[in-house]
């Protein structure tokens, strides 16, 4: 935890000091473009790695009755046996986290000397996980105003919806606060529960701190340590047109923000955050639950050497005929 926090803080310090020392070109242009390249190449590499891995067994998770006899009702979504069912389960999993909805927590409860182990349905992780992903998506989506000119008509729609409260100037976006709250929950969850804290590694904390860095610097940039947004758009448009320019009036907060984003992009393909693509490559989720209907062949099984009965009979026909055994084909009569 402390290690990850130090790492994330040093990113902020390095970016802040670096931009202050006149390395804006590196932090504002070289690093982000390199980060996008690493991100794309890393994701492709990981995905191809997964696609090359054979699946020896049919290990789809079943969350309901498998398709069997006609008078037993199958669970079409929780034990999908058709491709449509598999796709349906996958899509719902990706957008609503159905499996996390079934999350349970084990806890010792009860008074006096008789605490009992109780398993109860715990929806917190599901709720805040969903909130985090939805808010993150909204925030990411809104940022496309910096990368497109003219700004497509639906981005102001989203902004007006997000700023519906018309609170403050610049208008307060609800997704900002929800995102921050969700990430803080995900962090505190790890710190609060001793069991969870015990199994948490730097690889669990670091992404959370980087996300916090992005969110805090982003909120600061919009509401507190403001920069000239028009200049920032000149910079971001320079990046996406590959004509890099460094306009005046872009403050240090922006470079810290951009560096956190670059670090996230570089780190993402090699981290647990790759569940973004990994979910689609999980055999537990992308295979149909049809083990009663089809035999799954392990693709790395060596080719079988076998002999048919016809070949066997061909070899021993004479001997078998002599012994009086029944034959499918009689030996040719010797004339």
């Amino acid at each position: 935890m402390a290690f990850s926090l130090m790492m994330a803080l040093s990113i902020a310090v390095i970016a802040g000091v670096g931009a202050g020392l006149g390395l804006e070109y590196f932090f504002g242009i070289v690093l982000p473009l390199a980060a996008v390249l690493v991100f794309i190449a890393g994701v492709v590499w990981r995905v191809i790695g997964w696609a090359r891995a054979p699946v020896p067994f049919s290990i789809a998770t079943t969350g309901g009755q498998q398709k069997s006899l006609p008078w037993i009702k199958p669970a079409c979504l929780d034990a999908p046996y058709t491709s449509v069912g598999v796709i349906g389960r996958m899509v719902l999993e990706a957008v609503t986290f159905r499996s996390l909805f079934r999350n349970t927590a084990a806890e010792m409860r009860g008074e006096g000397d008789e605490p009992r182990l109780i398993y109860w349905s715990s929806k917190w992780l599901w709720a805040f996980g969903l909130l985090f992903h939805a808010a993150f998506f909204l925030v990411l989506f809104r940022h496309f105003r910096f990368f497109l000119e003219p700004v497509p008509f639906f981005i102001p729609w989203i902004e007006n919806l997000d700023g519906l409260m018309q609170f403050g100037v610049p208008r307060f976006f609800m997704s900002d606060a929800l995102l921050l709250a969700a990430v803080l929950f995900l962090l505190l969850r790890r710190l609060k529960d001793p069991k969870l804290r015990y199994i948490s590694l730097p690889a669990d904390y670091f992404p959370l701190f980087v996300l916090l860095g992005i969110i805090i610097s982003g909120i600061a940039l919009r509401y507190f340590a403001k920069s000239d947004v028009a200049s920032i758009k000149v910079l971001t448009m320079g990046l996406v047109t590959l004509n890099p320019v460094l306009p005046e009036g872009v403050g240090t907060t922006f470079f810290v923000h951009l560096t956190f984003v670059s670090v996230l992009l570089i780190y993402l393909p090699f981290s647990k955050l790759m569940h973004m693509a990994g979910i689609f490559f999980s055999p537990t989720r992308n295979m149909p639950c049809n083990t009663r209907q089809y035999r799954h062949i392990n693709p790395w099984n060596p080719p079988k050497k076998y002999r048919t009965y016809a070949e066997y009979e061909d070899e021993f026909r004479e001997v078998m005929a002599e012994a009086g055994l029944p034959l499918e084909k009689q030996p040719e009569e010797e004339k």
Partner: protein
Amino acid sequence: MYNARYVIPALLVFIILITLPFWVNVVTPEYSRPELVLPAGAEACVEPVEYMRAEHMRLLNEWRDAALREGKRVYTSSTGQVWDINLQNTCMHCHTDKAGFCDACHDSNSVDPYCWDCHIEPGAVTGASGNGGKQ
């Protein structure tokens, strides 16, 4: 590679989506800072121009709070000049071309202030022009 006929199209879609802004901007004209119609008669803004670029929304918010919550209707700028706290008669007295100034920059940065639901744009009502708020 297994299931190449699904994986390769999916990867292509991913790459195209991620790089979409790069492709879209190949066909759109090169981006430059929006051209603003600056006020003809005036030299400087209420505050230094760098400050205005980044902070004008916050300044307006402070003005609004000062005028409507604290009843303070004059503002002394960092340069010591004194201004009437008034959106329509101070800001818009100089920046008469709202479309060519405020909107030009806002449209390009996807900002859509709702202030004009109530406040009146210059030129929308004839005869509504103050003295520019300079005291």
